[in-house]
């Protein structure tokens, strides 16, 4: 009874006091702003933060997404096991990655063999309307491609989405630059016989992660385009471990460092090499496609490093909003801002001759995420460290994520690995 009366009072209060008169000229101001604001392209139209905190993903989710990529890599590995690396049938075949120009998330493109390849597009952090209700905003669209010279047109007939909803995906085409071995994507207007670039489309630059592979039994392409890379061309972008895997169970996805050695992985425009001491206390394994060094291949558990470079940086370290900054000074200032239980003071360091800072987090409870951008961040309840490094103007971050069970020796080993990092551009 009290509740009913109270509810009525509260509702009446709000209705009585609601001021629905727009501020003077506000409507005109909005209309004027809209007049000069372009809309985003449909595929990646962004609705940032609609789940309260779209990013950062908890580490478990993030590495779950990596696991998805690993499944794909495993398929490639199985093919490799059958016949060893083989040249791609087209310049498009292989795995490509790019940074979404709109929100800084990482995108993947998997292009199959042949002149009408299957194409799979993935966005690791899709903040678009397609994923408005999805907890895990990993957008996937599978399409069919058609290659004409240096151009790959892809139609995603079944649309794409993050699981809960499927949305139409516009026809895209990718143009290959043989000089740089990169792709640029464009949206095509299919209502015209000769597709043209849709105004307002923000193209992404795609760099190659791996060359294509195909079973040895598959006949080679009969008429490869003139721009096809040489069969002897090395897989330039693939990280080269300093040590041959000693443990065959590590498989094709990870470099086994259980006996120590060096591990090299790409971090944006940088190449980062870590040295693992001989007979380490942790059986380290390093992912080949991204810089991820952990106690279990492709996992964050029980301890693992993950590195990335600045793309879109959060407005402050507790909030996933994103005015872009890329300066070390700004990054440190923002990470210095939140204080509270579980967030240490900044520790100033030098890593690979570059200025760096470390923040130690213990069972984070102060805010919903501590870090700088979606890929490198600690979430509630997580323990670890965030490092930021100024690599001659390129802002790089390393997340050390751990479950808190490590011995002092294991922690010192992890810190020694961080201290050993060599970073090259």
């Amino acid at each position, binding site marked *: 009874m009290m509740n009913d009366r109270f509810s009525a009072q509260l509702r009446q*209060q709000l209705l009585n006091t609601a001021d629905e008169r727009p501020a003077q000229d506000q409507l005109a101001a909005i209309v004027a702003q809209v007049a000069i604001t372009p809309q985003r*392209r449909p595929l990646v139209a962004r609705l940032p933060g609609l789940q309260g905190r779209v990013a950062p993903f908890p580490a478990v989710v993030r590495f779950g997404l990596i696991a998805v990529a690993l499944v794909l890599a495993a398929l490639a590995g199985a093919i490799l096991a059958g016949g060893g690396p083989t040249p791609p049938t087209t310049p498009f075949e292989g795995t490509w990655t790019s940074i979404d120009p709109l929100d800084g998330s990482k995108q993947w493109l998997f292009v199959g063999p042949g002149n009408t390849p299957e194409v799979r597009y993935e966005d690791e952090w899709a903040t678009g309307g397609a994923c408005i209700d999805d907890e895990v905003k990993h957008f996937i669209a599978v399409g069919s491609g058609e290659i004409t010279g240096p151009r790959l047109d892809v139609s995603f007939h079944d649309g794409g989405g993050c699981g809960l909803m499927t949305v139409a995906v516009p026809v895209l085409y990718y143009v290959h630059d043989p000089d740089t071995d990169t792709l640029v994507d464009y949206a095509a207007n299919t209502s015209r016989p000769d597709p043209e670039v849709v105004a307002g489309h923000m193209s992404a630059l795609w760099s190659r992660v791996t060359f294509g592979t195909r079973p040895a039994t598959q006949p080679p392409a009969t008429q490869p385009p003139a721009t096809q890379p040489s069969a002897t061309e090395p897989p330039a972008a693939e990280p080269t471990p300093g040590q041959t895997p000693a443990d065959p169970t590590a498989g094709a996805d990870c470099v086994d460092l259980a006996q120590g050695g060096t591990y090299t992985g790409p971090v944006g425009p940088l190449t980062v090499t870590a040295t693992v001491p001989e007979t380490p206390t942790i059986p380290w394994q390093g992912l080949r496609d991204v810089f991820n060094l952990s106690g279990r291949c492709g996992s964050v558990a029980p301890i693992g490093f993950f590195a990335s470079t600045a793309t879109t940086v959060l407005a402050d370290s507790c909030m996933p909003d994103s005015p872009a900054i890329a300066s070390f000074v700004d990054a440190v200032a923002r990470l210095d801002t939140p204080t509270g239980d579980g967030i240490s003071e900044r520790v100033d360091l030098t890593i690979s001759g570059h200025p760096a800072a470390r923040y130690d987090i213990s069972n984070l409870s102060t805010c919903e995420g501590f870090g700088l951008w979606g890929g490198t961040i600690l979430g509630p309840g997580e323990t670890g460290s965030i490092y930021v490094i100024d690599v001659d103007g390129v802002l790089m971050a390393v997340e050390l994520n751990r479950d808190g069970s490590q011995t002092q020796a294991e922690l010192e080993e992890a810190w020694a690995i961080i201290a050993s990092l060599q970073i090259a551009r």
Partner: protein
Amino acid sequence: MRELVIRARGGDRDAFSELVARSIGRLTAMARMILRDEYAAQDAVQEAYIEAWRSLPGLREPDRFEAWLRRLLVRACFKGIRRSKRVEAVEIHLTPAHELAIPGGERNLAIHDQLERGLARIPADQRAVVVLVYYLDLPLADAAQAMGIPLGTTKSRLNRATQALRAAIEADDRTPSRVGERLA
């Protein structure tokens, strides 16, 4: 409405302007109630609309436009609060008592004041849930969606908010009786 959304989604600015004109009153009121700061509310409303315009091509279901816009507004409100670091130290904007035309005389006026003070005191996230549920009359599930938080969290926020507000009224209930005793 649906037709306007479809046209706006296709880049029709006039259609979008019409959508803004139709919804700006309600959104402004929401922002004022959540933020209790006139300028911050104006900023949040503008930010929500601009984000809506930019992202509209990604809205698959035109019928969800209003719910989607609410989410953008709630998000813009929280962004504004975080930006200004005024989560608790919000400017209290009380409607002047003489402007009210509440039936029921002094008793209702007292409740009004207590609720206003209570609403000003509770955190913005709780206030937002109250606004969504009691002002917009949204089901809890829709309020949770607008807030971008789980249903359970929404319930607990609403529960905490209403407890605080009820306590304010109950305190008010006790005060007149004591005064009455003294007068008697």
